[in-house]
């Protein structure tokens, strides 16, 4: 029982961590809480189902199930990257030098817009993920873990590893870190910061899209409103780990998933969503820099 909850928690946590990375990367560069990031995750979940339906319609899922799943994820990640970059261009770039509250309100507007856009085009009923995946548990050495859970955990580890490598070693990753430290200085050094920021949104959206697709597979049912709560929780994870800090978001996500899963099992399932908010409030009050974050200097 405990082991089962632990694995459920880790699975949930891996998803939170992937979404949290998008928040933390954007915050690291723009000091903006991208409120609409949760909606990108929701759009990713819908796209997963839509593209999979398309692949099934042409008969590809029957012959090559895993290959078509792979392409479903690639396609929805690419589409979500487009959504993320377009969102940045429309709602955030014009406000980069505005009063601090303006981008936040614009982000809230974007979030409401995207939710209703999906509701109007896809209907307000629950959307069901087709039953084409093998179910059943693998009980390796007494650990009960389902195939989907294993897939989510593995995929998350691979993606996070790839992100770490990308940010540490590649040219664009270095440009990102430079932009996060000092935008003016970075642009004086010849870094095209507009493109770097667009790339940051694209990468965050890709991670969120994959997380959304995996959640659609895991729970089997999605709804246009899932982005809001998932977004807040992922943001909590980012803050818990130290916002702006990439390994922090990973740790925070896993921790939050564990707390929520164990809390729901042993304390109260009705207030399950409350744990995340309570943690968020407590962390912001007592350790605003998070677990792994450095002390943030005061900003007016």
């Amino acid at each position, binding site marked *: 029982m405990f082991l089962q909850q632990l694995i459920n928690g880790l699975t949930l946590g891996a998803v939170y961590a992937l979404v949290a990375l998008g928040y933390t990367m954007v915050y690291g560069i723009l000091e903006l809480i991208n409120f609409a990031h949760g909606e990108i995750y929701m759009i990713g979940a819908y796209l997963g189902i839509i593209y999979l339906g398309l692949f099934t319609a042409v008969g590809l899922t029957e012959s090559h199930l895993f290959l078509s799943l792979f392409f479903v994820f690639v396609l929805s990640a690419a589409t979500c990257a*487009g959504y993320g970059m*377009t969102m940045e261009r429309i709602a955030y770039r014009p406000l980069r030098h505005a009063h601090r*509250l303006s981008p936040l309100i*614009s982000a809230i507007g974007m979030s409401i817009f995207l939710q209703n*856009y999906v509701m109007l085009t896809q209907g307000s009923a629950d959307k069901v993920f087709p039953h084409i995946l093998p179910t059943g548990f693998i009980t390796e050495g007494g650990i009960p873990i389902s195939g989907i859970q294993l897939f989510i955990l593995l995929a998350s580890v691979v993606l996070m590893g790839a992100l770490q490598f990308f940010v540490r070693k590649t040219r664009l990753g270095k440009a990102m870190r430079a932009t996060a430290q000092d935008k003016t200085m970075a642009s004086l050094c010849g870094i095209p910061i507009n493109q770097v920021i667009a790339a940051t949104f694209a990468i965050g959206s890709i991670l969120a899209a994959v997380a959304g697709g995996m959640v659609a597979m895991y729970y089997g049912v999605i709804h246009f409103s899932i982005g809001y709560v998932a977004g807040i929780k992922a943001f909590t994870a980012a803050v818990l780990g130290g916002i702006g800090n990439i390994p922090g978001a990973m740790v925070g996500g896993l921790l939050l998933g564990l707390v929520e899963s164990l809390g729901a099992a042993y304390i109260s399932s009705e207030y399950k969503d409350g744990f995340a908010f309570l943690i968020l409030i407590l962390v912001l009050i007592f350790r605003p820099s998070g677990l792994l974050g450095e002390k943030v200097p005061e900003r007016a």
Partner: protein
Amino acid sequence: MSLSKLTHSALIGLWLGLLALPFMGWTGAGKLAATLAAGGMIWRLLIQWSATERFQEPIARLHRRAREIGASLAQINRTARLVGGAALFLILPLFLNNYYIDILSLAGLYALLAAGLNITVGSAGLLDLGYAAFYGVGAYVYALLSTGIGLSFWLGLPLGGAIAAAFGVILGVITLRLRGDYLAIVTLGFVQIAYLVFNNWDAVTNGPNGILNIGRPVLLGFTLHQPIHFYYLVLVLLFLIAAAIDRLTRSQIGRAWIAIREDELAASAMGIDTTQMKVLAFALGAGIAGVAGVFFAAKYTFVSPESFTFLESVRVLSMVVLGGMGSLPGAILGALLLTVLPELLRELASYRMLIFGAALVIMMVFRPQGLLGRRH
């Protein structure tokens, strides 16, 4: 008209259509792309034409005329303007049916809420996204005491306000060290927790079913029940509260709030007790929300958790933003517009929130200071 600008519009339309393709299918996305591209081209052509002299001249004349009217309005003295406005709203219901009177009293309720939030967000610059929680606290306090011990509305009004204000003090003290968007997120968590409590604490709040049969206000033995009664009730409440806020924001306290909003460090260096002032701003805003909540419970005789969600906070916030942050007449105007306009656009009901979201973005990009606000 350069051709490249037109191609640009076409490309934007094509790109957005492409993004919408998985959601809307070929026909839907095609129509969207064509509409956006054509709209963009027409918009650019209009801008180009309006820049030519033939169009500039009448526009300049209109501007002059508008400025003259504004100047002559400003010359009428303040009292006369207030009396005129009050008289207008006093006789307005005589020309309207019950449906519109009901909408207007709803607008009055939102004006109360917006006026309160304008203290916290507009004057003191503390972005409070948890405002609906205080509104809910006021509503539930009166709902419980009215159904439980038969508390009268006139006692419920100050009591609901006071208890909501107490919660405001608690939230204010907890979040003292936070600023900007961190504060916004914590207050958002607060409204979410309040919703969970309203929804799950069955023994007290009756969970998602809400509380029914809340007592209506009784005035000298007469029970208020018609829409017009509530219209005048909210008008009186709004008048009293707006007058109080107006005087307060002109006092030392109001100036202290503005100083904190503009530069907290400088304000505290000038000897302003920023802690006290920030908590006061939270408490006052929350108290007014509580009063509005009591009115809400008495008007509809029913409360349920659905009325006090984060989205309700956003709605009130957008009224404050639309009117112009920090402007009391702006907040009231914003509440009036954002209550009446959606009612007039009833046919577009399902698109309402879509338009609302887009309008928030467009507003922030093109006119962040709101209708009556000043750009600083």
